[in-house]
């Protein structure tokens, strides 16, 4: 005879693999999402950048001194300079009828001749992209005017160009100078993988507990030859399996997408996931799936309906996502302390793995920490499933769940 939990696990897996919503969420979404999302995103960014380059822009020129200064160089392509008063130009810029406003001091020419500095103001706003593009067109023009004036001054004194800047710093990014792929992946993967892992656990957890209560199938199970702990074990393993498959499908789909390489404007973005990196990520994602399965089953088991379960899951999702977001904060890195914080350690390990920084002790510490918390979550889930709150729901909720569970239930049970 097979143990009850195995019979139930077979039933749960059969049931869940026939659920279109679960299949869409776990397999179809990642397979289509990443290539679609990243390629479309790349195409949109490229097209947007190109469109801005070709967009005719009008830039206000305040005062004849500004016009004279700018006349030293050709007008940038697709750009028109229009003389305006400063106040009027500012108003038009706020109304998005102008892309930018340029103003040099009235004595600009005299200051240049006298060897003094001329400060040229470029008014723009980040509120609309055309204005930022106008700034981008003005920068090289003003730089060119500056270089010409500088050359005249240096030539007059018989000096070299290096005289002005005796020491020039030139940063060279050893890893990502030519390819931003790993950097972008290290930012995206922790958030996306944890999000999908959480989604992969939460939906089936609600469906298999609160959903079953609502459909009346839970009572059917609990009066059969299965103990609550058997029911819990089967659901726990099912939720964990769905979460792991979701994370794995996302990981592979993302690896495949990055493997082809994505162009985001001028920057190259290619990224290859090596088997070692995939194994490292799985080493932390599987325990994380167990942890999330325990948490989500515990919380969902207190709900009476699917809708109520979904409401309860919103704060759970936010709480579980917070560590993923925290992992992107400057200065937050995987160390012996952060490796003990559940989910934050998973996000940081994924990040470190993508960047090639993960070490074996960090992997083991992260796995061990998450597994300990997963065991606590499993114990909580077992307590929840043994309580009458799980069987029929109840307004006494958490207090009854962790306290006097034996005699706690609701007035609604009293019929």
């Amino acid at each position, binding site marked *: *005879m*097979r143990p*009850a939990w195995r*019979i*139930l696990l*077979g*039933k749960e897996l*059969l*049931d869940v693999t*026939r*659920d279109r919503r679960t299949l869409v969420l776990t397999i179809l979404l990642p397979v289509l999402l990443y290539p679609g999302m990243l390629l479309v995103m790349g195409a949109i960014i490229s097209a947007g950048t190109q469109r801005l380059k070709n967009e005719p822009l009008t830039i206000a020129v305040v005062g004849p001194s500004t016009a004279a200064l700018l006349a030293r160089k050709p007008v940038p392509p697709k750009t028109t300079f229009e003389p305006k008063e400063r106040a009027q130009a500012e108003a038009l810029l706020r109304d998005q009828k102008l892309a930018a406003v340029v103003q040099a001091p009235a004595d600009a020419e005299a200051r240049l001749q006298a060897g003094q500095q001329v400060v040229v103001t470029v008014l723009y706003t980040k509120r609309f992209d055309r204005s930022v593009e106008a700034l981008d067109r003005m920068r090289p023009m003003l730089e060119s005017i500056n270089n010409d004036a500088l050359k005249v001054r240096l030539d007059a004194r018989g000096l070299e160009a290096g005289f002005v800047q005796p020491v020039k710093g030139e940063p060279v990014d050893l890893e990502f100078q030519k390819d931003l792929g790993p950097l972008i992946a290290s930012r995206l993967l922790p958030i996306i993988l944890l999000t999908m892992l959480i989604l992969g656990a939460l939906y089936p957890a609600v469906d298999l507990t609160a959903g079953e209560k609502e*459909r*009346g*199938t839970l*009572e*059917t199970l*609990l*009066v*059969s*030859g*299965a*103990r609550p702990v058997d029911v819990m074990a089967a659901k726990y393993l099912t939720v964990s399996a769905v979460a792991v498959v979701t994370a794995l499908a996302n990981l592979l789909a993302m690896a495949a997408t990055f493997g082809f390489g994505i162009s985001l404007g001028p920057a190259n973005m290619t990224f290859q996931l090596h088997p070692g990196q995939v194994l490292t990520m799985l080493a932390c994602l599987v325990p994380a799936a167990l942890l999330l399965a325990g948490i989500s089953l515990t919380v969902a088991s207190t709900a009476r309906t699917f809708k109520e379960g979904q409401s309860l899951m919103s704060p759970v999702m936010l709480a579980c996502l917070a560590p993923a977001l925290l992992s992107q904060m400057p200065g937050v890195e995987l160390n012996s302390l952060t490796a003990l914080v559940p989910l934050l350690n998973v996000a940081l390990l994924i990040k470190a793995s993508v960047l090639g920084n993960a070490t074996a002790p960090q992997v083991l510490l992260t796995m061990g920490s998450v597994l300990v918390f997963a065991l606590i979550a499993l114990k909580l889930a077992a307590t929840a499933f043994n309580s*009458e709150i799980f*069987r*029929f729901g109840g307004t*006494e909720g958490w207090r009854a769940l962790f306290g006097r569970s*034996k*005699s706690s*239930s*609701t*007035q609604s*049970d*009293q*019929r």
Partner: protein
Amino acid sequence: MAAVIEVEGIVRDFGATRAVDQVSFGVEPGEVVGLLGPNGAGKTTTLRVLAGLLTPAAGRTRINGVDVQVEPLAARRQLGFLTASTGLYERLTGREMLQTFGRLQQLDEETLAARIAALTDELELQGFLDKRCGAMSSGQKQRINIARAVVHDPLAYVLDEPTATLDPLASRDILELVQRAQARNKAVLFSTHRMEEAEYLCTRLLFMRGGKVVARGTSAELLAQSGKQKLTDAFLHYAGGAA
């Protein structure tokens, strides 16, 4: 004859409210005992305690001599439990439902196959046994649900308002189930609000009100005790607490 279903002095509270108060009764093989009473009388709580879904504050329940609170799994192997709200897994076929619940009741594969075959004939499941439950009509679902409840051929049947949401045609399946069970010497505890069903099926009746059994006996005895001509009037008499 020893009772298959035994309820002895059970008490169950919900917070400050006593839902079931010192309820005792037994159901012998071949008996169909009707549990009657208004909403909130404590019928469902009594049946849930009997099925081991709720723990009593005091008292005992036994199925075929097995203490439900001490050995719930062994007790449930002797129990077929059916309510109006017990559902089916919509994505499983009828056969998969019966196989799953039969295996949970520790039936070996040979016995299980024989039981499914017997129930298929008895409940006329042939046309839809391999259909997914979600694609079945409500009548077909009801029959699968009955088969699910009795796939392990239990000695005791506990039916909690099983016809509450059914039309007369679907209710007929339940009534026939009870009659067949009685003919096979099963002990049946049947909770209902439908007096005509109770009068038609039950060998004995228990009236509950406020968590207590306020009257018990055969239909004729209860009519005589209440001084009423019809069971519905007797129900109103006991439910209202009138003299």
